[in-house]
């Protein structure tokens, strides 16, 4: 049991995109590129109701994985990681509940405020749900070379959640 490895913590803070794998209705995995938002304990992503199939999948089966692998989207960091975890959908009010994570989103995509100011132009895009992932197990490659075995860690947060 341990905290999030420092390198993975840095990847989560810097990554502009991750690939979230969820279990589809037929058992096949479906992967969605999303912006990962990290508060030091859980990974948050948001999804518009327009693209809400992933939310249906998560409600059916909350076991997920997300990976950060593209140095272009991590400001040049060459390390890579995959994080398995348990996801839940938070959407008390799809109109505004997601704004809880707006400060984290704004830090990665400052232009979000501009888009939000034009909410009237694409109103359904801003009806959103939060995907909250409690990390369970982490795999990471310090130098980003996927041909080498990754380092692994099981996280305290996941243990505590059990």
């Amino acid at each position: 049991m341990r905290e999030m490895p420092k390198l993975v913590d840095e990847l989560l803070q810097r990554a502009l995109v991750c690939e979230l794998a969820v279990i589809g209705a037929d058992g096949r995995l479906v992967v969605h590129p999303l912006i990962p938002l990290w508060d030091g304990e859980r990974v948050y992503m948001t999804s518009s109701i327009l693209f809400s199939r992933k939310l249906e999948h998560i409600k059916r089966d909350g076991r997920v994985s997300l990976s950060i692998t593209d140095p272009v989207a991590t400001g040049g960091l060459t390390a890579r990681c995959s994080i398995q975890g348990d996801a839940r959908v938070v959407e008390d009010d799809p109109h505004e509940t997601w704004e809880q994570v707006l400060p984290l989103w704004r830090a990665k995509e400052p232009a979000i405020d501009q888009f939000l100011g034009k909410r009237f132009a694409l109103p359904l895009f801003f009806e959103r749900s939060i995907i909250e992932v409690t990390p369970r197990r982490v795999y990471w490659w310090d130098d980003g070379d996927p041909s080498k075995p990754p380092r692994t860690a099981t996280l305290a947060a996941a243990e505590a959640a059990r």
Partner: protein
Amino acid sequence: MKIDRRLFDKLATYPHAIVSWTDDDGYPLQTPALFEVDAGRGELVLAASGIALPVESEVNVTVSHIRPQPGTGYDQRRYIELWGRLQARGGARILAPARAWGWDEKETPFFEYSERSNEQARKYLAQVSAEQGRQVKPRLSRFWTFLLATRLPFLTATIVPVLLGIAVAAKHDHFNWWLALLTLIGGAAIHIGLNVANDVFDTLSGADAANVNPTQFSGGSRVVQRGLVTLRQMGALCLGAYAVGIAIGLFLVVYRGSLPLLIVGVIGVLLSVFYTAPPLKLVHRGLGEVTTALGFGPIMVVGAYLVQTKQWSAEPFVASIPVAILIALILYLNEIPDRRSDALVGKRTLPVRWSADIVTKAFLVAALAAFAAIAVSAVSGVIPLPTLLALLALPLVFQIYRGIREQYGAPYELMATLGKNVQLHAMVGVLLLVGYGISIAAAHL
């Protein structure tokens, strides 16, 4: 399932993939992997991985790209997902994908992608409503909802001709401010009724639902498709707006005791109702431009003039001609992005009937005709000479012409040109009003 060979060309542009499969605990497990594309065999050859890739198992292979734009966000979003069973060949792992799916914002712009997903949004909100035991609907402030539903910014199409009719009357020494204000409100109400009716009938015919490339100038208000307003509410809004407009019109007719005003008003209301309403559905028959030109040209200008003067005159009719042509051209160009969805539901507008070349050239001819009408009627003394100021807007015609020619097939790129076309109508209208203002001022000096 046969995978399009072009997909393999695209795959070869990505530097690495992410392989995902389900581990023994039932969780998805992911690893980055280098790969090569064997387009001839329709296969991906995955390099050895530090986490052993599962053989004879179903996997998902995803390639993804995004370009960060520091300080703002990102662009160049694209990704491809492949599904299939991994096979071992020597030390390599081979995927001959059985299924593929992806999105590239260069091929399917984000706005179109979103528009295509409206149905999923509706379905999901119904599920959330059932889960939460209350109706969960998308929301927007009342101000924005009303503005969108009524397409209020397009009221310039009414304001320009009504003010022009009042200006011509003022030049003829007739001006009553409260009658002018009532005329403006009545005209605006009928215009709102028309806009909302257009949405109602385009929703019922399926034209708006079929349109996946709406822009701020075309494709309707989308408030029904996005679940912000119900069709019933739109129907009530439409009837309410027409009721206000007709009531004001009838009051003006009775107050002024003008039979010609009644005739003009009735024609105006009928044109606006049957623009999209059955059985005439004028816009479906390629008559939208003519209907719009009449309604927002002579009907409004002559009607506003009659309210003030109670007399017929040729001048308001002549003054309305350029405004009529330019308002028809707003509709005409706004139909370009809608032409495919319009064709699907039998809405045979001119851009549906004509080729891109004819549509483009016809715009130029019609726009130049509007300016020729101003020049001829001003020089011949039918309208005041200072209205020649409106010719200052002429360069916009050529900018718009170039824009249509270059962006005909690209709805979102065309938006700037459609915006300029709206400006052209407003600018010519304002300059004609300035010309009348100068003429009136000069007469009183």
